[in-house]
């Protein structure tokens, strides 16, 4: 079962993960963007960790709401509203809940991804984080009956494949799209931060 405290652990882990990967994500973004994705994510989740430290969330919905508001206010750029919307929709899905089973977690994630797609209007193969999110949701749907651990593991694997599949693509959304053909042969930074987000989830929510 995913509990409020395992969600908190996930969010704290994300702070570590994005701090560690700050340069890596920024480097990816410097190839086809504006060299700030790692800085943005690290700044955002440092603030998330602070917020959650200051005021322990009452339930999973409240936790996600705090993440959403914090990211929206502190990240800026494209990833701020996108991840902000992700957690906002997730928080609505999990409002008042202190426990989630595999299906409940999947619903939260799916609501979040629907929000990302509605906000960013990206389609598969536009070379964005959506290329990691959509296959992950598909894979998790297929594995939901196996329980939280296997479901998340399937999601992580699909996200990683989706992330890698962005490499040869020509970007059609976000800053990278301004480069046209020159955006080829680079891995999308947002798909990479999405993969890291799911990986951290499977390490903290599966137990």
């Amino acid at each position, binding site marked *: 079962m995913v509990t409020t405290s395992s969600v908190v652990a996930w969010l704290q882990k994300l702070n570590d993960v994005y701090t560690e990967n700050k340069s890596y994500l920024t480097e990816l973004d410097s190839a086809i963007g504006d060299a700030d994705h790692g800085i943005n994510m690290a700044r955002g989740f440092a603030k998330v960790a602070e917020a959650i430290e200051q005021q322990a969330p009452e339930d999973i919905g409240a936790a996600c709401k705090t993440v959403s508001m914090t990211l929206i206010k502190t990240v800026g*750029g494209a990833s701020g509203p996108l991840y902000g919307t992700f957690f906002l929709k997730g928080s609505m899905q999990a409002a008042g809940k202190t426990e989630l089973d595999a299906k409940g977690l999947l619903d939260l994630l799916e609501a979040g991804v629907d929000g990302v797609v509605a906000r960013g209007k990206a389609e598969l193969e536009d070379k964005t984080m959506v290329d990691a999110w959509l296959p992950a949701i598909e894979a998790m749907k297929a594995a939901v009956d196996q329980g939280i651990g296997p479901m998340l593991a399937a999601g992580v694997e699909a996200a990683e494949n989706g992330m890698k599949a962005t490499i040869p693509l020509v970007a059609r959304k976000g800053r990278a799209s301004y480069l046209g053909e020159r955006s080829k042969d680079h891995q999308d930074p947002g798909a990479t931060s999405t993969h890291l987000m799911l990986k951290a989830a499977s390490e903290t929510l599966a137990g």
Partner: protein
Amino acid sequence: MKKLINKPEDVVRESLEGMQAAHGDIIKVFYEPHYIVRADAPVQGKVGVVSGGGSGHEPMHGGFVGRGMLDAACPGDVFTSPTPDQMEAATKAVDGGKGVLHLVKNYTGDVMNFEMAAELCQAEGIDVEAVVIEDDVAVKDSLYTTGRRGVGLTVLAEKIIGASAERGDDLKKVADLARACQANGRSMGMALTSCTVPAAGKPTFELGVDEIEVGIGIHGEPGRERMKMKSAKEIVGIMSEAVISDLPFKSGDETIVMINGMGGTPLIELYLLYNEFVKVAQGKGIKIARRLVGNYITSLEMEGFSITLLKADPDMLKLWDAPVHTAGLRWGV
């Protein structure tokens, strides 16, 4: 990295404090969330005009807040879109009861953050309309992509719609004018050198000693083509051809031109470049009715320049000439 700063994370705030200290007669700066409003905001009975974007492009946007131009500007971190809470606060601060126009440069982040802010403001009963500027001809325009980057045209549009709001035009009219600017304006930029985002600590890209990047954005994003160094005449030729043929601008068109420095370009070179552009325009019969030559929308210390061309009708020219009193542009007052 050598920069005249204290800590990278304090650059935007400390610079805003300096702006406030320097221009307290024109603007008022608020912090956390950061936004700049004209000193007499809100002006009752006037449409509010709000813009914003990453910092590092000064004087845009904060330097264009004041009578006859912007009512508010929302500065993000360096080269990073500001956030919806900034725009929401700014919009409320300048709402004079006639609605507020958001002028947005076309970057996914800017567009989405302004969208979220507009939703929040509309939920509180403020009439908000957004117009997106996307004028960079270096980016291929197509139905399937995000469209073009918003660059130099933003400056000209801010002046024109700012004057429109100032004379009492309603929100629809102000927004229509912004769309007319978008429909009739095009830009392109180039760089001799990169720039360094303070938080990143090293140049965004590297250019060889004899290389230039043509079609560059205002954030050190790679451009359309890297080429060998050329003469001013050749470079202006390539860039103006791209700009002129895109709309296309035609013989007899009356235009407003901006030769804009990227931050590190000496003014002596900007005038020389303008001189080259005048020759190109004359050759094509394009009339230059008004012009700006200087640093208006910059990329930190980048060396390079951009050309913006706006086909202007008589009303736009009248609005261009209207008094403006901001830190970055001032006349008639």
